[in-house]
């Protein structure tokens, strides 16, 4: 009698960690906003072969290669050594023993980088790698959608830069590859209460003074070995990360919401004030910031570009102008195109509404979540971008906005081998991912996965 109970208890114990792991990605995004926990942990270096030479070579040959930078090379080869891209182009000599993936007639492009995401094995919070689930079935679904990296735990607003976000890779089955970097993104409100605004300005000043003191110290150190390094003033740690370029500051503009049930007359109708506040913060910092879904960006794209700031948009988000109120200028489908014209790096994301979701999921409405990230880029094209410009919003520009463009976002020598092989134009609504490669490993193959096995192609 006791044995079955005992056995079931053991079974439960064995099973439960896995069960919670399955769930946590969706429901426990954990530790966002203020007080974002410990400073970012030391990042593990990307795994390298011990003798400096790659052990395993893979080549994707003959494909129509979109570099992610806006350029495209037809019939090119992408050579991968272990987990990095070694070369992209024509007439590349393949080392002996190279595994060749024939991509003739196919399209090759960088894995998509999503500035918002949820689930997909992401884990619960810093240190993210401790709770990542490399066997979350949602990883396969994300890869099928072309997503190879996304930001887990996107920051919210607050009165000071804070956040506990990580760029997570969809490295199926390999937990040590799942967290690309933590702490590259911090969040804050663009418009702060007067007292908080003063405090922030002061902290930026202190941080800049500290950086000067640090420079002086480094210069002095060689002459005077007894010189003591300056101590960072309390409260400036995150600002120093922003100034050093380690973290991007995402500014929440907090306006412009639109309730379609309200007869089209709700919502702020303009967030120009908030954008101008953000520009002021960018000017004080002397570094660009990231504007999160600026509704009125189309009215001031040149101003945003002048501060080296970047923009996250959901092109199909819509707020009508109010003909009775000239201040409520509303949204513009051409916003993404106008920002692009002004030279602003731009990432797209799906609208977060009643059914729009940040993750893949299996219960949403197709075309409104991460199952189809290219649909949002396609709406940017509808507003006037070209398809090749729009691909950047899911690759290199998105990686810039996440502060990880030195690792991912384009097919260039030295970058991580996160690559998709597609059966057509990446921006076309009928295109499917045939093969997804993360860190040089094939982690998804359309033909060998059940997910889309029923779709008549």
């Amino acid at each position, binding site marked *: 009698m006791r044995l079955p109970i005992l056995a079931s208890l053991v079974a439960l114990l064995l099973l439960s960690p896995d069960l919670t792991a399955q769930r946590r990605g969706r429901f426990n995004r954990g530790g966002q906003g203020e007080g974002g926990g410990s400073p970012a942990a030391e990042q593990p270096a990307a795994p390298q072969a011990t003798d400096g030479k790659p052990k395993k070579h893979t080549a994707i040959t003959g494909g129509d290669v979109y570099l992610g930078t806006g350029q495209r090379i037809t019939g090119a080869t992408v050579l991968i050594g272990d987990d990095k891209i070694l070369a992209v182009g024509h007439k590349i000599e393949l080392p002996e023993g190279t595994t060749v993936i024939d991509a003739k007639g196919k399209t090759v492009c960088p894995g998509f980088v999503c500035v918002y995401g949820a689930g997909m094995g992401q884990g619960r919070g810093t240190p993210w790698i401790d709770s990542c689930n490399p066997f979350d079935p949602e990883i396969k679904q994300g890869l099928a959608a072309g997503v190879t990296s996304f930001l887990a735990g996107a920051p919210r607003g607050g009165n000071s830069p804070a956040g506990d976000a990580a760029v997570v890779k969809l490295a199926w089955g390999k937990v040590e590859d799942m967290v690309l970097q933590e702490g590259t993104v911090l969040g804050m409100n663009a418009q702060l209460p007067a007292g908080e605004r003063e405090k922030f300005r002061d902290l930026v000043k202190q941080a800049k003074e500290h950086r000067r003191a640090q420079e002086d110290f480094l210069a002095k150190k060689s002459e005077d070995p007894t010189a003591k390094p300056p101590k960072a003033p309390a409260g400036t740690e995150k600002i120093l990360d922003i100034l050093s370029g380690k973290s991007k500051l995402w500014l929440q503009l907090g306006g412009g919401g639109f309730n379609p*049930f309200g007869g089209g007359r709700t919502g702020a109708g303009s967030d120009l004030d908030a954008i101008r506040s953000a520009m002021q913060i960018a000017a004080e910092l002397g570094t660009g910031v990231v504007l999160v879904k600026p509704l009125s960006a189309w009215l001031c794209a040149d101003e945003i570009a002048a501060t080296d700031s970047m923009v996250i948009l959901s092109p*199909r988000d819509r707020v009508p102008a109010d003909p009775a109120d000239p201040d409520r200028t509303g949204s513009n*489908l051409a916003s993404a195109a106008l920002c692009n014209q002004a030279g602003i790096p731009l990432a797209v994301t799906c609208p977060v509404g009643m059914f729009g979701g940040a993750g893949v999921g299996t219960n949403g409405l197709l075309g409104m979540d991460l199952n189809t990230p290219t649909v949002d880029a396609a709406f940017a094209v509808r507003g006037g971008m070209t398809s090749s410009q729009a691909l950047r919003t899911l690759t290199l520009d998105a990686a810039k906005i996440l502060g990880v463009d030195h690792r991912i976002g384009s097919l260039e020598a030295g970058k991580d081998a996160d690559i998709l092989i597609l059966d057509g134009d990446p921006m076309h*609504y009928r295109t499917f991912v045939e093969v997804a490669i993360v860190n040089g490993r094939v982690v998804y193959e359309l033909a060998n996965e*059940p997910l*889309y096995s029923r*779709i008549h192609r």
Partner: protein
Amino acid sequence: MTRPTYRSAVVLTFAIAALTISSLRAQTPSTERRDPIPKGSIPKDTGNSLDVWHPNRPATEAEHQVAKWGPRGLPSPGYVFFAEKVLPITAPPIENGVVVTRNGVIEAIGRAKDIAVPDGYEVVDCGDAWLVPGFIEPHCHIASASFDLNDTVHPTNPEFRTLDLITLEHDQMQMARAGGVSTALYIPGSGSNMGGFGTLTKTWGRSPDEALVRFPGSLKIAQAGNPERASGDLGAGMMGMSDGIRSTLLDGKRYHDAYLAFQQGKGEKPKFDPTLELLRGLYLHEFPLSVHTQIYQVVLQTLQELRLELGLWTVVVHGEFDAFRMRQEMREAGLPIAAGPRVYHFDTRYNEISGLMADWYWDGEDGWRDQVKGVGRDGIGVNTDSPVVPQEQLTLQAAMGVRLGLPHEVGLRALTINNARFLGIDHRVGSLDVGKDADLGVWSGDPLDPRSHVKLFVVNGTICYRRNPARPAW
């Protein structure tokens, strides 16, 4: 005013027995692993498979006693639209085609070299654009001034109608035009079992009267998956909800029977009852029931109670989730389906994603690939349920259906002629044919591609939208 009671317990018992038997039958095929979708060619369109949907439906607009039809042939300028690609939908695409319109209707359609420009007609050169019919939205709540989706006063509300709420300059109406939608069935929400009567309206007109296509467009019924939250103690469970719907419809039938007897000289004229008056139209088969019914168990109820037991013209709108499991039974009973906005289904047993519309079309020998009167390939439609999904994204719903396996051609039919046929307005709209309403969308490319946009939009022969590239509405 009669309200639902439990007096029809006998009918209910019978229905439960019928339901149990049918559900067993319906479940049998669904437990087997479904075959991969076969690759095959699309059957050719054999022409209009039907003129009217319901066999006993009045043959002409003039014979309708209860339903009112909107005006036709309103003045509009003479236009000749040239386009590189013209898709009449019910006929093969025309390269370098031309469509001639005047006074609200299409006067001619064909190849540019075959049709001369009539005197006094303005030429509109659409260049390399695609010219398609205005799309039809079979399930939306778009036109009213504020939060007017639901009035859940009673469990069933046959006294309500959307006719008086049409606001043609409503934001979602404007977006409908920018998104290529020319006709909408604007219905009450699904907060109660019977939300009221919907209105078929054009999305543009000089007045709501001019824009009217037909009132009632349908009677909105919601059998489950929303009306549970309605008022009163009746309507919290399937049994109570079914009884409420049936009781109200049977009240309408008694009223209709009494009226019929009076018309045949066999009785007195029944006392005018504004609540039941419009329900008469259901039994004259002048307009359909549009039923919000989602999972297949509830679709089965729609089939049993509304289509088979009461013999009413019924259309399943918002047919999501695994409703497609009922396709064999639905085809036999003649019950068409508008899928959307949830266009995919995740089968947890096999980790498989399938497209809902593709499932209706392709699946095994029950797939709706043939033309069957009222259903079959003519019976697959698509809807947004706007503002749940914004009205301008109707084409995206069809595009996602096509992404998941529905043939592109059928995706376009789902937006046009199919929706028109099962709502009984295909003699007016849904394709580019001589004599039909001049509702045209001029698209920059494939209308299903989210990158394409409407350059110019025509409703009832009048150009009512031109896209401003500097600030495109959509």
